[in-house]
């Protein structure tokens, strides 16, 4: 929700935000699309509500499902007609995941992302697996004694880790 919009927000826009907070991400159903920072704005154009989304990854197959789900939720709550527009710039970043979202990720068993340093993966270009410096805490036992198995997990936004203390595998939401 942009700061400028808050002051002048109509009841209809407020209700739409409340509805959108209940729309879960299809790939990480512990979080709402608002927790993830995918919904960027809700704008009222007279009769029509514009829902502005920023996709997480270029090829995220969930994008179209999310478009469908937010439209169905807003229209289903009688707040329509609504339309979805995609806003590409600025690019989505894990910095937009809310504190609430990070807590829910952790409870769900996914280690939340650390700070997205724009240059971090660049510096790590030639470091081999197992020698990375960034510590990721195990979401089960909180140990920092963990290692990355692969930069790519079950979805583009997650990487695969294992905890060397409790020996359990887990996923990490990649900072991007």
């Amino acid at each position: 929700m942009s700061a400028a919009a808050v002051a002048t927000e109509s009841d209809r826009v407020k209700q739409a935000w409340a509805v959108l907070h209940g729309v879960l991400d299809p790939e990480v159903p512990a979080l709402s699309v608002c927790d993830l920072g995918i919904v960027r704005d809700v704008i009222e154009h007279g009769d029509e509500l514009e829902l502005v989304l920023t996709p997480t990854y270029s090829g995220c197959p969930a994008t179209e499902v999310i478009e469908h789900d937010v439209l169905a939720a807003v229209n289903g709550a009688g707040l329509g007609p609504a339309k979805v527009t995609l806003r590409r710039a600025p690019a989505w970043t894990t910095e937009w995941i809310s504190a609430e979202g990070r807590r829910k990720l952790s409870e769900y068993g996914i280690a939340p992302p650390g700070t997205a340093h724009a240059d971090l993966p660049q510096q790590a270009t030639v470091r081999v697996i197992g020698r990375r410096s960034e510590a990721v805490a195990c979401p089960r036992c909180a140990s920092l004694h963990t290692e990355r198995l692969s930069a790519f997990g079950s979805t583009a936004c997650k990487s695969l880790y294992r905890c060397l203390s409790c020996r359990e595998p887990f996923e990490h939401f990649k900072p991007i």
Partner: protein
Amino acid sequence: MPDMTAASIALNLTPATQYLLRIGDTCLILGQRLGEWCGHAPILEEDIAMANIALDFIGQARALLAHAGTLEGAGHDEDQLAFLRNERDYFNLTLVELPRGDFAASVLRNTMVATWLKLLWQRLAADSQDDEVRAIAAKALKEARYHQQHSADWVVRLGDGTAESRRRMEEALSDLWRFSAEMFDTDAVDEAAAAQGIGPRWSELEAPWRAEMTDILREATLEVPADSAFRSDGKRGRHSEHMGFILADMQYLQRAYPGGVW
């Protein structure tokens, strides 16, 4: 509703659209090649990684093709551009249409292309005068960094690994390195794109690409291969013998069932 029944579309080509199609087609064809690993990678984690990287490439291709279609102004959407062009109208680097080879060849190719794309996205995100290109590049850059890191890790592991993994990586280098020249030769399309502020001349990417690749190969204890006089020419529509086969795979459904959706 665009007409999806045409057998092939004719492009209304300008230097700007060709410049973007060179990048978009490179992402499209490499995405298709990497998809071939799904169910066939040596370990499950890499099966997943290859498919994930493929999806990123398809997403980047989709955005670029859609934008190229808008600039082209002939009403072609990204699906028509992806599936209804003839071979000579694809402008990807020849490197990405080569058969996927073994795992060593695939991760080496991914490293060469990801390093090149990362440098290109950086320039496009910072300097392009086209708002949409800048936005696509800013997003893709974040993805390319992960692709490069992941693939370079494997080049190092295999190069500095067992006798067999090293032999495979040396063979991949000897097969693929000569195709890198195409990433950097500059022509009229480049000059026009640079003059219009769309993107850099590709020759400007050569020095930083060589520096990064040299670092990666040194870490992998591999020799940087000597340059050769060989020049591939996919970006001007002249492809290797492998291109027709991959297009047949990709296009079959849209050619057999025009406009089919699900």
